[in-house]
């Protein structure tokens, strides 16, 4: 996992990150992105055409970005490092931001897989 999060470094708490911080972060990233993409393509994308525009698809990526950021921040800060909300240090904020950017990339990749299973959003974000 350390290699996956190569953009992030926190030498002071390396063992905590290595033991569960990275893994939990990755699970948050994966599960949230999966849920958001599934909601977009498998639920909404089969129910109505209302969300079948690139704009709405992008909106869902922003929702995914924010959700991953908030969940990562809360889980890592409160549960993994057992800090109170006001005492989160910089590295936790930084990790949450990096995880959110990864979530954006994941959302795009998952979209390419899930879009085939949709009815109305089959050609969003790209046509192939």
């Amino acid at each position, binding site marked *: 996992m350390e290699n996956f999060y190569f953009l992030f470094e926190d030498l002071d708490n390396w063992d905590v990150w290595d033991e569960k911080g990275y893994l939990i972060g990755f699970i948050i990233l994966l599960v949230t992105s999966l849920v958001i993409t599934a909601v977009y393509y498998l639920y909404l994308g089969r129910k*109505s*055409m209302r969300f*079948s*525009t*690139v704009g709405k698809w992008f909106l869902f990526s922003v929702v995914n970005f924010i959700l991953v950021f908030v969940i990562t921040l809360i889980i890592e800060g409160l549960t993994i490092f057992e800090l109170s909300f006001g005492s989160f240090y910089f590295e936790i904020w930084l990790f949450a931001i990096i995880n959110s950017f990864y979530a954006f990339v994941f959302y795009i990749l998952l979209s390419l897989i899930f879009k085939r299973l949709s*009815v*109305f*959003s*089959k*050609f*969003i974000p790209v*046509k192939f």
Partner: protein
Amino acid sequence: MSKPKLYLFAIGGTGSRVLRSLTILLASGIKTNTEKIIPMIIDTDINNGDVEKCRNIIKNYNDIHNAIYNGVREEESQGEFFRTKIMPPKELNVSGSDYGTLKEMVGYNSLDAKGFEKTRAFFDLLYSNKNKDMPLEKGFLGNPNVGSVVLKNVVESNAFREFTQDFSQNDRIFVISSIFGGTGAAGFPLLMNVFRDENSGLNNGNYINNAIIGGVSVLPYFQVDVDKFNAGESAINSGTFITKTKAALAYYNRNLKHLVNTMYYAGDTRQSNYENFEGGIEQKNPSNFIELTAASSILDFLDYDVNANTKEDLQISSKFFEYGITTDIGVVDLSHIKKDNLSEQLLHFHYYNVYVSNYMKDALTDEKLAWRNELKLSSNYHNQNFFKELEKFATVHYYRWLLEASLDQHDRKFLPFDNSIIVNREEILKDVSDMMPVKVAVDDKKLFTLVTGIPAKNSSNFFKKDYIKYDEEFSKIAQKILELHYGNTERNVHTLLNQGIKNIIAERYVL
């Protein structure tokens, strides 16, 4: 045995206008018990505006039909829009301008010769000087006695010869004519006598003699400006229509009733008011509900004793029908039409045309739209012929026909749909070319109130607004359409529109 072909003789201006209404009915997907319809237009006034409109609409119809159904088996896709094949009209060439006047045509001056005194006297007895000097290029202007002489030449024309050569054993013949004018009133008895004459010497004469023959005779349904007649500006006097009709009906009763197998009479006591034109390009009467009625009689004829191949097979040798409506109202809408699939098909077709004219172009340019991509339509499909033809049929022919039928000049209007969606109404009515496209504007709310007096089911509530979503319905079924493996993009698009609109109507309307 395969379905019969229908040879449809459309005589005079009324014939062409009924043919135009029939084309609209067939475009709406009414099922017909025929392999194809072969229109035969008989009109000495070759420049007649109604004939021109009729030619244009059939050409447009054919272009669409051929793009979709070329090579498709007869029994497939029945009930879809534009399904019945209509051949390009054959025009029986009896151009009045070739003959000049009746006098010139019969060689009246040569009757001065010795030995022809009695013939000349007899001719003078039958025809007034006005009749004899009447130019024939604009029809017979309400003089069937003149028409009966000139139209004899129809049977000598190449188109008539082709008809006799192509005629098969179980084919049927139907004749559309008006009874109160000149060309139609003269042409119908003449044709009937030719078809039933065992000694006519026609090709396939035996088949033609024994064919099941029907006809619709349109009784007076309009009147023209009498002032023009009184001022000598026009030879047409609608004041004589009823008298002529009575005389013709008496003649039909005596001489034709044993010749025709199925005869329909369509007429209306509520009259329309038309301008008084002596034929020519200016004679472009607006569509009329009674013409739609007459057109529906053709469909009825095709279903009449379907197992009979010749007149001998018929259970009843002659049958006569009259058209009637249950309520004498000034505005006829879908609720007044007999509850068979006619009103349902018109409803489907209207929603189809609304989509084609108002939404389809945007859909075809939407690169992300599911149904467009599923059917692998090219990015410039909206510029290709097929879409252009569909759009033309909707905007140039269909809406114009609807608009004309609802004009105030008709004492009985046909207003099945809300015509307020037509935004360039004034320009359309002034347009002399008849090719100006109708512009329509339909919003989400209007889609629920397109049908006069019958709103679509709307499940909007305080929390949720309901919409009629064409593209959503089409996208839902696009995959299924592909699984039909038609291998023809136009047929895929067309089937998708048919099926999708069927689903929308089933969800929104109970007729």
